């Protein structure tokens, strides 16, 4: 189960809406050893694409170093789907490398309805989990 504050989740969804029709991506960092999604970091989608995303490498280096210095990890790794349901694509599953991350997907296909779902992806195995907003 992913537990996330409404403030952080609202910021993630707002980022996805802002970048629509391109995919948006980012992380929510939290303390190493915890499962607390605390610090929202929107990332630049280097692909600037409606169908692909990748973290911009120079930006990622800076963000990962900062997390390292703060003893944080990426508790949530999120991205948006802009025309399809918020379910991991084959590419998402193939490229998921962090068994401890919550992979959060936001769909912006409906301008009037936010769709948010979360998954664990381990060795190609996808398991949906509950999102508890607090």
């Amino acid at each position, binding site marked *: 189960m992913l537990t996330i504050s409404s403030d952080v989740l609202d910021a993630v969804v707002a980022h996805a809406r802002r970048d629509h029709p391109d995919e948006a991506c980012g992380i929510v960092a939290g303390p190493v050893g915890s499962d607390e999604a605390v610090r929202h970091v929107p990332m630049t989608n280097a692909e600037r694409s409606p169908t692909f*995303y990748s*973290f911009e490498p120079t930006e990622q280096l800076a963000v990962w170093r900062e997390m390292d210095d703060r003893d944080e990890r990426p508790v949530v790794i999120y991205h948006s789907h802009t025309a399809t349901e918020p379910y991991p694509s084959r590419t998402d599953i193939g490229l998921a490398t962090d068994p401890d991350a919550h992979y959060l997907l936001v769909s912006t296909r409906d301008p009037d309805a936010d769709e948010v779902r979360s998954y664990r992806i381990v060795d190609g195995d996808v398991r949906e989990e509950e999102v508890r907003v607090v």
Partner: protein
Amino acid sequence: MAIEVRIPTILRSYTDGNKRVEAKGDSLADVIDNLEADHPGLKDRLVENGSLRRFVNIYVNDEDVRFLGGLEATLEDGDEVTVLPAVAGG
């Protein structure tokens, strides 16, 4: 050559949870072999068929090693190597 290597959380199972480890070597390939000696299994997560894995990014200080010769990149005492998992999808 003492090189500090920053390890991302997903690979810290190989380093007893340490986020930074020290290694020796004049090139990235040497450093990775040296790391493997102390942290067995790590090399396989970084290198595949003699090349850097496609979805692992390695930096020497602020420079992507792909622009420094990849595994052949030369290192100097005090350099910092950072390993990052690429994050991508569709």
